[in-house]
């Protein structure tokens, strides 16, 4: 059982707070979507969770071990991270080479050609449905294919926890759906704990069981998908500062679409008016 826990974490860039007092626990096999507006601190939270950023207050722990006490290799066998696929260096390798490189934490002196590593790569490519890309150069891929290859790399890392930063942003509907299936497969077949940052509420609900909503760097809602949907009419305008309407799909799932701006009183970073306690406009529900 792997448990990722953040206790009271805060982080600021140049003295400007970005996230504050966030408490969050992801247990083995849960799928969390972290939603919020641009600049709400979602990506920063994700980077703190995998140790890329060291939070200024509070602790992040993996199985009750403080993450700063783990070496990068020890962290890398627990948590895989998929960054945003845009505006980043394009690895000058084929997809297969790139995915194989993800075996680094399991190797000594970077020797990556053992049968075990190659099997892990085959499995990761199969699980993410990217076998057809294996021989292509990363630089020659479309945006959707590139994002898939990044996720395939993380899958080859075979970690119990997978963090994804905006995996569907900038993608067309077909690739969005492919990414969603990938996440669901990793979650269901491997029991991977998935934590995804997104501002697409429908994608969040379609691939995840739990929702963590941030406003201004603080937790606004934390709980199951169903309880989130129950209060969605109230929550969504506050979270996204936009008006939403809901529709019910033939399979009874709810679908939300934007219907104009909403006059939200909450703007900017870290409003003191939204503390995470009993006074929170919405009841925060602890996950089990």
């Amino acid at each position: 059982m792997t448990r990722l826990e953040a206790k009271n974490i805060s982080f600021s860039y140049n003295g400007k707070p970005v996230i504050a007092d966030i408490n969050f626990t992801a247990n083995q096999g849960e799928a969390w979507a972290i939603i919020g507006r641009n600049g709400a601190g979602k990506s920063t939270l994700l980077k703190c969770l995998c140790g890329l950023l060291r939070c200024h207050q509070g602790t992040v722990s993996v199985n009750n071990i403080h993450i700063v006490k783990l070496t990068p290799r020890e962290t890398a066998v627990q948590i895989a991270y998929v960054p945003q696929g845009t505006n980043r260096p394009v690895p000058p390798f084929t997809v297969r080479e790139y995915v194989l490189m993800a075996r680094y934490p399991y190797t000594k002196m970077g020797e990556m050609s053992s049968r075990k590593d190659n099997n892990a790569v085959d499995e990761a490519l199969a699980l993410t449905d990217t076998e057809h890309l294996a021989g292509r150069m990363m630089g020659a891929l479309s945006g959707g294919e590139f994002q898939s290859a990044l996720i395939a790399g993380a899958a080859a890392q075979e970690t119990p926890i997978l963090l994804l930063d905006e995996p569907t942003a900038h993608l067309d509907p077909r690739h969005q759906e492919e990414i969603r299936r990938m996440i669901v497969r990793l979650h269901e077949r491997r029991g991977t704990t998935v934590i995804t940052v997104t501002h697409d509420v429908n994608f969040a609900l379609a691939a995840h069981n739990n929702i963590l909503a941030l406003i201004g760097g603080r937790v606004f809602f934390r709980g199951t998908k169903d309880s989130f949907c129950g209060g969605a009419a109230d929550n969504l305008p506050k979270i996204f500062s936009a008006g939403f309407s809901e529709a019910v799909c033939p399979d009874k799932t709810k679908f939300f679409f934007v219907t104009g701006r909403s006059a939200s009183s909450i703007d900017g970073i870290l409003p003191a008016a939204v503390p995470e306690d009993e006074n929170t406009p919405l009841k925060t529900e602890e996950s089990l």
Partner: protein
Amino acid sequence: MRLGWPGVSILFALSIISLAVLPFIGMETIGITQISGDDLQREIFFSIRLPRVLTAFTAGAALALCGLVFQGVLRNPLADPFTLGVASGASCGAALMILTGAAGVISGIPVTVFGALCGAALSFLLVMAFSGAVRTVSSNGILLVGIAVSFFFSSVLMFSQYISSMRDSFRIVRWLMGGVEVFGYGPLFTMLPFVITGVILIIANIAALDHFLTGDDIAQTRGVRVRFSRILLLGAASLMVGGIVSVCGPIGFVGLMIPHFCRPVFGAGHKILLPACLLAGGIFLTLCDTFARTLIAPAEIPVGVITALLGAPFLLWVLIRQESR
């Protein structure tokens, strides 16, 4: 198409051939029979030609490797010890030693070497410190800091040249053009320890070098100690540059060019690219030096002039090719 290990073997064979053949070529071609017979020819061959070719090969190989490391770690096709100011720091340090007339050895190391190492270390630390301070440790920011540091050391050098005597000034200018005219094996043995240490440190971190190309965030979350590896790799390369510059002066553009020639042929994976660059760099500088000493014989052209003549247009080609992508 990638050549892989067969290609590296070909380069290795070419290296052996050039090391075996080029010492015979010079102002006058020496025949194999003359080495055993003629005392003067033997002296020229073993004390001048052979050490010179070996020095050129070692320096070329090491400079190409430095370029590869800087380009890989900083993910910038224009990074190399020269564009980052490390070479000009080393030059400045060594030149100051020559100018102040300091001679002799400090704890077994010739003072110019000492000066070059200090200069390389100082400029490396300056670049790291400032790029850290302006929070641009990756990408282009570090190059800009490097250029600033490079200009700073160049002007220190110019100033000290200006106030020095004509004779010293000429020596510095000649030395700054870069060259591998050595007598005997002393200079080679001076720089070998730095080169060997550097190569070992870099090979030990070769996997990290690959991971830098995927981006620092992915590299770190895959278990690479990014900050540590970056400083170690760049530090090892700077150490090598210090050693080479102290002997050969600044020979530019080898480190910039060779990795760019090797990448399309050998791919970007450093396990193959690293030996390929070492060998190709060695062959390249040995050939350039052979031209340098035969083109207008009996006079010699400083080899740094030849590499720069080839390198400057090459730089433009790199820029244009990058733009057209």
